[in-house]
C-alpha cells in the first residue's frame, strides 16, 4: 500500500473514533445532566432504565426515533428539515482540530492524536462555531412560529455579542503561544516555572474567566439560554421540532458543549498535559493513553461545571445579557489584551 492510502486509513480511523467518542460523550452527558440535576436538587433523577439509569439516553433515542415525522403546515419545508441537520453537522465538525493527545509512535509512524493539525486551528473553531447559529436562526424562521422566530432572533444577537468577547479573551493566550495552532499552545503549557506547570490559567486568569462566561453563552445554557427560555418562549427555536429533528438539535447542543469544554482545557489547562509526569519512566504508549485519559477527565470536569451552573442560576433578560456582553465582558477582554501586551514587553 502506498503511504497515501495508509494515511487515509489512519485519518478515517481517527474520524470514526472521534465521532464515536463525541456521540458517546453526548450519551454520557445526557445521563450526567439528568442525574446531576437530581443530585443537586435532592431528588433521584432517571433511575429506571438500566443500572443507575445509564440506558436512559438509549431509551430516549428509541422514543425519538419512532416518533412521527411532522412538519407544520405553514413551515418552509426544505429549510425546516435542513436546519437541525446543519446545526448537528457544524457541532461535530468543530471538534476536528482539537488535539486529544500527544504524538505517538506506532509501527514506525508518527501519529498525531488529532484529526486535522491545522495551523489556524483557533480560527477554524471560531469560524465553524459561528456557523452553528445559522441552524438555530433558520430553524426558528422556517418553523413559522412567533415564539421560535423570537428565539432565533435572540440567539443571533446573543451569538454576535458574545463571539466578540470570546474571540478577544483568547488573544492573550495566542500572544503567549505565538501561534494559532492548538498543538503549539499546548506545547507552551507543558513547560514549568520551577514546579508550577505553565498552564495558561495561571497567566491569563481574567481571559479564562471571560472565555468561560462567553462559552456558556455560546452553548446556550442557563443563565444565557435566552433562545430556548422554556418559560418565556416555550422552548424558542425548537418549539415546532419533534422526533429525530429535535434529537439532532439535542445532540448538536451537547456536542457543542463538549467542544467548548475541550477548548477550555486546551487553551487554559494544558490540554492533554499531565503535570510532573515527565520525571517518571513510563512506556510511551501507556503515557499517551494516560494523557488521553487526563484530557477526558479535564473535559468532564468542565462538563460537570456547566451542569452545576445550569442548575444553580436564574436566567438573564435579553437586554441585560446584551449590556453584560458589550459593557462588561468586551472592555475586560480588551483590557486583558492590553495588560498582557504591557507585561510581555516589560518581562521578555
Amino acid at each position, binding site marked *: 500500500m502506498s503511504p497515501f492510502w495508509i494515511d487515509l486509513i489512519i485519518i478515517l480511523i481517527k474520524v470514526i473514533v472521534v465521532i464515536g467518542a463525541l456521540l458517546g460523550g453526548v450519551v454520557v452527558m445526557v445521563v450526567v445532566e439528568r442525574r446531576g440535576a437530581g443530585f443537586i436538587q*435532592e431528588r433521584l433523577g432517571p433511575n429506571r432504565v438500566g443500572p443507575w439509569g445509564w440506558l436512559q439516553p438509549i431509551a430516549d433515542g428509541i422514543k425519538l426515533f419512532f416518533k412521527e415525522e411532522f412538519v407544520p403546515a405553514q413551515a418552509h419545508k426544505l429549510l425546516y428539515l435542513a436546519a437541525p441537520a446543519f446545526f448537528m453537522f457544524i457541532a461535530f465538525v468543530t471538534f476536528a482540530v482539537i488535539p486529544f493527545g500527544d504524538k505517538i509512535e506506532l509501527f514506525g509512524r508518527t501519529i498525531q492524536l488529532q484529526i486535522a493539525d491545522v495551523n489556524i486551528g483557533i480560527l477554524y473553531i471560531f469560524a465553524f462555531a459561528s456557523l452553528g447559529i445559522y441552524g438555530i436562526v433558520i430553524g426558528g424562521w422556517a418553523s413559522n412560529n412567533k415564539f421560535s422566530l*423570537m428565539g432565533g432572533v435572540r440567539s443571533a444577537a446573543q451569538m454576535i455579542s458574545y463571539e466578540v468577547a470570546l474571540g478577544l479573551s483568547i488573544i492573550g493566550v495566542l500572544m503567549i503561544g505565538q501561534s494559532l495552532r492548538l498543538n503549539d499552545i499546548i506545547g507552551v503549557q507543558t513547560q514549568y516555572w520551577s514546579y508550577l506547570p505553565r498552564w495558561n490559567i495561571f497567566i491569563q486568569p481574567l481571559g479564562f474567566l471571560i472565555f468561560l462566561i462567553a462559552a456558556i453563552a455560546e452553548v446556550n445554557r442557563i443563565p444565557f439560554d435566552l433562545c430556548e427560555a422554556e418559560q418565556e418562549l416555550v422552548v424558542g427555536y425548537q418549539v415546532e421540532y419533534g422526533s429525530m429533528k429535535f434529537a439532532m438539535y439535542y445532540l448538536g447542543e451537547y456536542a457543542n458543549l463538549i467542544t467548548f469544554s475541550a477548548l477550555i482545557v486546551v487553551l487554559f489547562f494544558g490540554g492533554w498535559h499531565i503535570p510532573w509526569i515527565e520525571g517518571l519512566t513510563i512506556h510511551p504508549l501507556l503515557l499517551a493513553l494516560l494523557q488521553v485519559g487526563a484530557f477526558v477527565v479535564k473535559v468532564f470536569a468542565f462538563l460537570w461545571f456547566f451542569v452545576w451552573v445550569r442548575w*444553580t442560576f*436564574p436566567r438573564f433578560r435579553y437586554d441585560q445579557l446584551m449590556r453584560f456582553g458589550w459593557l462588561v465582558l468586551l472592555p475586560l477582554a480588551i483590557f486583558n489584551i492590553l495588560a498582557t501586551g504591557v507585561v510581555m514587553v516589560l518581562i521578555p
Partner: protein
Amino acid sequence: MADEVKEILTERMVINFGPSHPATHGVFRNILELDGERILDAEVEIGFLHSGFEKLGEHRTYNQFITIADRMNYLSPLSNDIGYALAVEKLLGIEVPPRCQYIRAIMCELNRIADHLVSVGMHAVDIGAMTVFLYAYKQREIIYDILEFVTGSRMNNSYPRVGGLVSDVPEGFEEKVKDFADHFLHTVDDIERLLTRNRIWVDRNKGIGAITPEEAISWGLTGPILRAAGVERDIRKAEPYSSYDHFDFEIPVGVRGDSYDRYLVRMEEMRQSNRIIQQAIANLPGGEVNVDDPKIILPPKERVYHSIEGLIHHFKLIMEEHGFQTPKGEIYSATEVPNGELGFFIISDGTNKPYRIHVRAPSFINYSVFPQLVKGHMISDVVAIISSLNIIAGELDR
C-alpha cells in the same frame, strides 16, 4: 450615504401568551402586542376554567359546599374551607371552641407556607432557577404529609365543618408539626442564599411590575401584592379571627411594590407563619373541637346508636332537605388566605341551602391589574409578573 439608508419598516407582533403556555400555570390567556420584545399593550381573557362553583353552592346544604370551596384555590384548600366555615358560623352567630380555633390557625398557616413555597418556587422556575423550585417542593411534601395524616387527603382536604372540624387531630400531630416547624427555616435560608442577593435574580425582579400603594388600594389588591407595595394590611391583624390575636407575629411590608418585594414579602411571611405555628402548638388548648349544638354538629356515634335524641339529631342533619337552617340575612366574612383577602358573601333565605354565594376571589382581583403592570416591560418580565402575582386559575374563574 445616510440618504440611501431606507427606513426599515417594522410591524407590531401580537402573540398569545396562554392559555396553554408554560408560564401561565393554569389556563388564562394574555394577548400581548409587541414591538420587538417590548410590550405595548396587553389584554387578558379569562373563563377557561369556569366551573360554576358559586352556582353549585345554591343547590347544596351549607356543609356540602365545603368540598367545593376547597377546589377553588387548589394550592391552599384548607384556607378556603376555613374561610367559608367562618362565614357560615358568622351567619349562625356561633363561635367554635378555642382548641378548634388553634387547630384551624395551624392548618391555615401550614397551608400558607405550602402556598408560598409553590409561589416562590414557581417564580424562581419562571426566571430559570429550577433548583429552588424543587427545594421548595421538598418542604411542601412534608406539609402535605402532615395534612394527609390529619385530614386523610393531600389536596381538597374538606377538613373543617360549620361549627368545628370533621374530627380532632390524631395522636402524634403536635410532634409532627413541631418537627416540621423546627427544621423548616433551613429551606427558607437556602432559598434566600440562592436568590435574594443573586445579581441576576435582583436584576430580573427589581422594578418589574411595580405598583404604588395608592394604585394598589384603588385596584383593590390584597395579600402579599398589597403589602409589597407598602400597605400594612393583613386581616389576621386588622380583624382577627380564629384566635389570631393570641399570636405574636409581624406583617412584612415592601417598599417598591415590584416583583422583588413580592418575593421578599412571601419569604418573610413564611418565617412569620412558622412563628405562629410554633406558638399555637406550644399553647394548644385541650377540650372539645366542636360547638356543643346538636342542631349544627352531628352527634357522636354512641349517642346515635344508644339514645333517641341522638338518632333524631343525626337523622335531621343527614337526610335530604334537612341539615341545619340559618337565619335569614346577608353576611360577608373575609379571611387572609395566602394570596390575599378571600371573602364569602352569603345570602340566606332561612332554608338549609344558601340563596346565593359570592366569592371575593383574590386571584380574580389581583389579576385585573396585570395589563397595567406589564405595559412597557419586556416579554421576559411577563413571566416574572405573572408568577409573582400568583394567579390560581381555579380561583380566578371559579
